[in-house]
């Protein structure tokens, strides 16, 4: 079996399978698909109010415009849609809850006609009091944003509080928190804030819906979740999932904002009014900032206590999440933040309250890290503060208290084998921890910072993966998967796993794409850094299944034991008789028995599945349970930077990163995830904030919302990984896509403190903010 052999493809940095198409312009994204002359376009009229009742909509003038086919409003979409908490309509029915909420849709022959006609729709609103800060929105007298919260369909593991703006409250009560405080010799107590930010995929959201007269719905979309979109859209329209077909073309960047559903239902609702016509809805970059999902804002209160020799004893945290106007997906982020609220540390006494709070800010949802970058911003600065008070080195304090194999973690789960301390050691060494380098100029100050992290895939208990593989006449094969290629390299990993397990050359494996829910095997979603692990297991099972069928057949043909046979390079070989037979001679047409006795076998099809079956509930009052998550991926990053004291600008000189990936199926792709995640993390740390004025984004463009450019990104990123295998991962693999941006921002904040002696509790650390703080520091010194 492959396990005993030297691995040929797993563990190798094979080039991406999709690279050729992507460098030649042949790669097909949703907007590149030809839909023919029947294609119509949809534009959406958006709310100018953050909170208002819709009293009247008059679309008669818009409908009279030549080229306009129909206008859709909330009365056409009475159903609810959402992943964990069905709290939104596709078009607003009776009220709008944020600036940019979808009020009406115009379907027309061109985008220009639709856009112009849209302006002729008259809407009468009755403005309502609005609330924009989770600390205000959680108060009993705050304007109620979802009066019907109690009637919404909600996942069993979430706890909304009807009659309030709290859509989930997750609690941990572990140990004896009150008793523990009396034993703490040093306590740090701080408040932190992270703003709403935007994912900014280069490809804006797009969906094309078609509703046939027979009632069959087809939708093409740029999505991380074709199967989940099929499910949620079917639910919203009261359709059988079998009548909804979602085709997911290549995705031009997702980072979470193309998970679940965001805008795709708009295209289906519009298409319903013009049967037979595909209707294309593509977001402008401005809509991307207003109406696609954002990362939730967070106000965090963290109180952490330890003995004077540095043993963590007690932690009390309150997380007030700004979930925006809809929290259908975000509720589960607040749960994940709760059950991971200690960060990667062992703390025996914990009190956690994580609140998902509705506000009239833009709708927020999952983004790379799923709550972990936000909570680690507070945890990892608090740890550094504690280290300073204790006069213990920050790396040493982390090594002492970080979670290790076999530890009982915050939810009571016992930690599986992990290599967090190895990750800490690697980055500390790479950054030259403890060695102070001189700044490059007298007006610059130089510092180093470290942060560590953990993150578990946050999902329902039982998200499944399926895979199949079938052969072509020449023995090459088509591999069916339902996971998406977002740029992370999922398709390349998929092919590596199939080729390795089956025993065929890598270039014999072709992915059956695009992902099409009618033909592709099931995959819950391409999220949670679960794809290599979960889909990888399904692919490996499918390849094992095909392999067994092949070996059994050949064993029968040769009258040998299948145990003596193997498949190598597409040939079945016998270790015993040294015979060989090419797959091409048997995978379609079977084998002809000697002496004209007919055939045995037939076309081979491998089938595989994987679903975690061991995840259990957490007690709603204590947050304790046997196993709340499938596993944690852990890691560390260290940053060295310089601050220009005359401008407040930060130059990141070097970043060192190390993650325990279990097994690097493709080391080159792991490095790609680290480098990309580090830069996205740096960008969030230094630049990014959706500037909101009464819920209205003020910086809804690339000029005003800056992300890191080629001029800003650091030159020196050292990417390392350790491999402490996952017992149920393919060859031990765990996910790493999201984790890489989790520790970056707090590592930057800690490095800035090292350089300047100034703490910043609010992200981002813009030059202006740093400059102002330096001015204040100088003022205090004078």
């Amino acid at each position, binding site marked *: 079996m492959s396990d005993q052999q030297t691995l040929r493809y797993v563990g190798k*940095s094979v*080039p*991406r399978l*999709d*690279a*050729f*198409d*992507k*460098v*030649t*312009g*042949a*790669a*097909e*994204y949703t*907007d*590149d698909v*030809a839909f023919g002359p029947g294609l119509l376009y949809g534009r959406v009229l958006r709310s100018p109010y953050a909170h208002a009742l819709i009293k009247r909509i008059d679309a008669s003038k818009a409908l009279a415009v030549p080229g306009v086919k129909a206008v859709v409003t909330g009365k056409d979409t009475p159903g609810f849609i959402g992943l964990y908490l069905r709290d939104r309509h596709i078009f607003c029915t009776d009220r709008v809850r944020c600036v940019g909420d979808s009020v009406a849709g115009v379907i027309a022959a061109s985008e220009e006609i639709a856009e112009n006609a849209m302006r002729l729709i008259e809407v009468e609103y009755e403005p309502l009091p609005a609330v924009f800060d989770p600390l205000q929105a959680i108060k009993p007298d705050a304007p109620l944003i979802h009066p019907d919260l109690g009637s919404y369909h909600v996942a069993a593991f979430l706890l909304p509080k009807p009659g309030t703006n709290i859509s989930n409250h997750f609690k941990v009560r572990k140990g004896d928190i009150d008793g523990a405080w009396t034993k703490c010799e040093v306590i740090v107590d701080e408040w932190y804030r992270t703003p709403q930010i935007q*994912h*900014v*995929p*280069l*490809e*804006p959201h797009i969906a094309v819906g078609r509703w046939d007269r027979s009632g069959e719905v087809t939708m093409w979309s740029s999505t991380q979740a074709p199967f989940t979109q099929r499910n949620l859209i079917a639910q919203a329209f009261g359709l059988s999932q079998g009548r909804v077909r979602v085709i997911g073309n*290549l*995705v*031009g*960047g*997702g*980072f979470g904002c193309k998970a679940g559903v965001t805008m795709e239902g708009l295209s289906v609702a519009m298409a319903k009014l013009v049967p037979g016509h595909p209707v294309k809805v593509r977001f*402008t*970059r401005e809509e991307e900032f207003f109406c696609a999902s954002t990362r939730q804002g967070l106000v965090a209160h963290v109180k952490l206590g330890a003995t004077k020799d540095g043993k963590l004893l007690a932690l009390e945290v309150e997380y007030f999440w700004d979930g925006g106007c809809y929290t259908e997906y975000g509720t589960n982020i607040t749960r994940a933040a709760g059950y991971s609220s200690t960060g990667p540390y062992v703390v025996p006494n914990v009190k956690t309250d994580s609140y998902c709070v509705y506000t009239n800010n833009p709708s927020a949802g999952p983004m790379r890290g799923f709550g972990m970058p936000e909570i680690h911003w507070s945890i990892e600065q608090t740890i550094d503060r504690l280290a300073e008070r204790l006069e213990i080195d920050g790396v040493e304090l982390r090594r002492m208290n970080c979670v290790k194999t076999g530890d009982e973690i915050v939810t009571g789960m016992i930690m599986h084998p992990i290599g967090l301390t190895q990750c800490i050691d690697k980055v500390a060494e790479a950054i030259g921890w403890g060695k102070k380098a001189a700044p490059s100029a007298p007006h610059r100050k130089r510092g180093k910072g470290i942060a560590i992290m953990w993150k578990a895939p946050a999902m329902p208990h039982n998200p499944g993966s399926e895979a199949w593989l079938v052969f072509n006449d020449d023995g090459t094969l088509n591999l069916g998967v339902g996971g998406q290629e*977002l*740029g*992370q*390299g999922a398709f390349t990993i998929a092919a590596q796993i199939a080729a390795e397990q089956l025993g065929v050359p890598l270039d014999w494996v072709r992915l059956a794409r695009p992902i099409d829910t009618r033909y592709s095997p099931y995959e819950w979603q391409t999220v949670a850094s679960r794809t290599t692990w979960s889909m990888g297991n399904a692919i490996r099972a499918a390849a094992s299944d095909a392999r067994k069928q092949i070996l059994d057949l050949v064993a029968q043909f040769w009258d040998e034991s299948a145990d003596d046979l193997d498949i190598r390079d597409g040939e079945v070989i016998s270790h015993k008789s040294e015979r060989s037979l090419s797959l091409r001679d048997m995978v379609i047409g079977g084998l002809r028995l000697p002496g004209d006795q007919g055939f045995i076998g037939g076309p081979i099809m491998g089938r595989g599945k994987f679903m975690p079956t061991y995840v259990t509930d957490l007690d709603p009052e204590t947050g304790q349970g046997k196993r709340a998550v499938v596993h944690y991926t852990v890691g560390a990053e260290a940053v060295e930077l310089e601050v220009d004291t005359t401008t407040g600008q930060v130059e990141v000189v070097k970043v060192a990163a190390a993650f325990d990936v279990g097994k690097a199926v493709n080391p*080159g*792709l792991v490095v*790609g995830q680290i*480098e*990309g*995640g*580090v*830069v*996205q993390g740096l960008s969030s740390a230094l630049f990014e904030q959706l500037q909101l004025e009464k819920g209205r984004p003020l910086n809804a*463009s*690339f*000029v005003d919302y800056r*992300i*890191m*450019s*080629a*001029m800003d*990104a650091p*030159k020196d*990123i050292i990417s390392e990984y350790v491999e402490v295998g996952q017992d149920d991962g393919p060859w031990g693999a765990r996910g790493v896509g999201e984790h890489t941006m989790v520790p970056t921002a707090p590592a930057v904040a800690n490095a800035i403190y090292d350089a300047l002696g100034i703490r910043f509790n609010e992200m981002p650390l813009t030059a202006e903010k740093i400059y102002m703080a330096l001015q204040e520091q100088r003022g205090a010194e004078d």
Partner: protein
Amino acid sequence: MAVHSITVKVNGAEERVRVPSNMTLLRLLREELGLTGTKNGCSAGECGACTVMLNGQPVNSCMVLAVEADGAEVTTVEGLGSGDELDVIQQAFVEVGAVQCGFCTPGMLISARALLNRNPNPGEDEIREALVGNLCRCTGYKPIIAAVQRAAKMMRKR
């Protein structure tokens, strides 16, 4: 809307097309000529996904009217290399792994090609400056810069 007849040489082939006054070069390429390799990321000249070469200069094709390209030569990502033979810059992107989601890649390749045309031996800072108008959210830019350096080296060897 007035309609204009223009002649434009796209990837070496002369095209005669009728375009309305307000049509951008990006729409002409994608919707009339079927060259969908060039991407639309913002329609505002801010992200660089739609970068093409216009008479050898990299431009955001969403900011150029099609009529302005009358008589001009345009090179898109489809015009790099020939047949299954990749241009060195494409080859370097594949080899280094400078591609993730791929949406910025066509514009990035054109900006890089334009840089190498005017400076076959650029330093790292020059490369970063040349690519500053091409945003990438996936790679962190490091492999892209390495790919441009590799391509420059490959060119010098030839």
